[in-house]
């Protein structure tokens, strides 16, 4: 997705010689007694599309507002391009923000909204006009330049807000739940547009969202937050395939969590989880002590369903179909095991629905490979 011109993968976070654009050093933010951000360290690199993801109240918006200058850290240092920005007021920062409510000025037309920031920096008239036209073209809003914000649709307003925040060519663009007000279809289209614009302008984007799909779609790296702390910062595929905790596994996508006791088994880890059933085999990305309580996270799409017992796999469980959720492209089967545990398994509907193999109450076998499940310390 993010590739530079040489075709090499874009991964400055793996390159020790790269200097980060933004650095959080031991940043803490308190509102009275409430700790919104707790001793946080984070590097964000130039040209990244960085997503802050977490439930509401996890501190992601506070983190963004500190970058914009609307909040100051209680302790710690935030650097932008090597410079401590604590003393710089919002109007002097080379950072612009796209607000959740869009915050378009209702008394100005779209052209003047986009020109607003340029007028403040006293840009020459012809240069400013060219820049506004360029922004209108970029966001495909040329035809609506003379309209007032309330005379265009929600999606168009979102684009005007983006154009206005990009007009000053900031070093860093902050996006606060930018697509929250759009419906699902428009949201998807706009996500791809955002990515195109981010790549064509080469601006660093930091996006705040509570929508994990959105974060996965647009971001080069995702930071999963909880209670003012970073839980995991990684590329979307790493976050999805090798979450570092049950919290991340559970927050990102659909997952089955099976709790038990860990036992080392060569390269992999065995998990004893219930009496009378063989241990489950999975991989672990950090060492887990023998006998420690642990949980296996297994994605529903990695579980196969069959009517015959598979012979080539060790992770095999029997149960009966409790529920089927038909979602068009895929179906999710809720399978109840003998001990009452319900496991979700997904099957892509490559055939027409009339030819479905399993139905309610059918006895089925669930199976997955030794590397499909991740064993995590609890």
């Amino acid at each position, binding site marked *: 997705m993010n590739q530079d011109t040489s075709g090499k993968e874009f991964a400055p976070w793996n390159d020790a010689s790269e200097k980060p654009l933004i650095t959080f050093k031991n940043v803490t933010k308190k509102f009275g007694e409430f700790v919104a951000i707790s001793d946080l360290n984070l590097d964000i690199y130039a040209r990244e599309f960085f997503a802050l993801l977490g439930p509401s109240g996890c501190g992601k918006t506070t983190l963004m507002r500190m970058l*914009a*200058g*609307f909040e100051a850290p209680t302790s710690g240092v935030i650097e932008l391009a090597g410079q401590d920005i604590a003393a710089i*007021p*919002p*109007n*002097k920062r080379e*950072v*612009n*923000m796209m*607000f*959740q*409510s869009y*915050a378009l*000025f*209702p*008394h100005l037309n779209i052209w003047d909204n986009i020109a*607003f*920031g340029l007028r*403040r*920096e006293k840009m020459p008239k012809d240069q400013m006009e060219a820049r506004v036209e360029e922004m209108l073209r970029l966001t495909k809003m040329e035809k609506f330049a003379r309209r007032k*914000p*309330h005379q265009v649709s*929600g999606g168009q307003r979102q684009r005007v807000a983006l154009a*206005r*925040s990009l007009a*000053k060519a900031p070093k860093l663009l902050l996006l606060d739940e930018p697509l929250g*007000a759009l419906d699902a279809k428009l949201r998807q289209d706009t996500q791809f547009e955002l990515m195109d614009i981010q790549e064509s302008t080469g601006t660093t984007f930091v996006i705040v969202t509570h929508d994990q799909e959105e974060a996965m779609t647009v971001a080069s790296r995702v930071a999963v937050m909880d209670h003012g702390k970073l839980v995991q910062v990684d590329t979307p595929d790493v976050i999805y395939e090798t979450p570092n905790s049950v919290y991340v596994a559970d927050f990102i996508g659909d997952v089955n969590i099976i709790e038990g006791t860990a036992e080392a088994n060569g390269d992999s880890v065995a998990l004893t989880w219930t009496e009378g059933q063989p241990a489950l085999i999975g991989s672990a990305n950090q060492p887990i002590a023998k006998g420690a309580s642990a949980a296996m996270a297994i994605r529903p799409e990695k579980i196969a369903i069959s009517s015959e017992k598979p012979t080539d796999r060790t992770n095999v469980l029997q149960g009966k179909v409790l529920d089927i959720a038909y979602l068009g492209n895929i179906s999710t089967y809720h399978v109840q095991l003998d001990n009452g545990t319900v496991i979700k398994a997904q099957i892509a509907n490559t055939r027409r629905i009339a030819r479905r193999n399993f139905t309610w109450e059918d006895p089925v076998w669930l199976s997955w490979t030794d590397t499909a499940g991740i064993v995590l310390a609890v």
Partner: protein
Amino acid sequence: MRRFSWFNATSLTIGFAFLYLPMLILVIYSFNESKLVTVWAGFSTKWYGELFRNEAFLDAAYVTLRVAIFSSLLATVLGTMAAYVLVRAGRFPGRTLFSGMIYAPLVMPEVITGLSLLLLFISLGLDRGVLTIVLAHTTFSMCFVSVVVSARLASFDQSLEEAALDLGCTPFEAFRLVTLPVIAPAVISGWLLAFTLSLDDLVIASFTSGPSATTLPIKIWSSIRLGVSPEINALSTILIAIVATGVISASLISKRAAMQRDLDSKT
């Protein structure tokens, strides 16, 4: 209540008659030919002519207009500032006290406001005249302005100001270029309200005016004690027209602004 029944029609008629019959009679008699106020002798506009030749009334009208203009402008500035602080400054010690105190003059008996201002001016050694009436009118009409403006500010999306700061405005520029234009309808209707209140006021003006400055309501009041003249009817009719225009435009402006806000918030 969907049908317009006889009962509804009657209530409406009685209600409006109660409110407007006195004024209607005054307006009708202002066009009376006769010198006797209560005897109708045919249509004429001569009392309006007489009125404009009456120096004392014209002087009083000039004083009233000056007082209304200056006090309403001053009240608009102070009332808007007060509203801005109360809505925006967040929690500061004494905030509740302040917001309660700003509304107190709304319910305070005018006699008391007038008397206390009189005492203040005397102790300051201020000669009573146009200046003291302006100050007194500013005092009570700024609360009305601040009520109207703070209602608008409360529904104002604060991220608009943050966006202005973000795009390079100083806090004052953000207020001037974004906040003020957006709340302008409320400020204007507050100003119109202050203007009409000042035009109307008798009680506070009579406490704070001096021999050098008499406002129109005081003039009317004192000449009525010598007997109602048709001139007074004509003058009152003009005042009713001015006040009605002011109040109606204030409410139209705020209604239009509310409609505009609905449009803005519509997705």
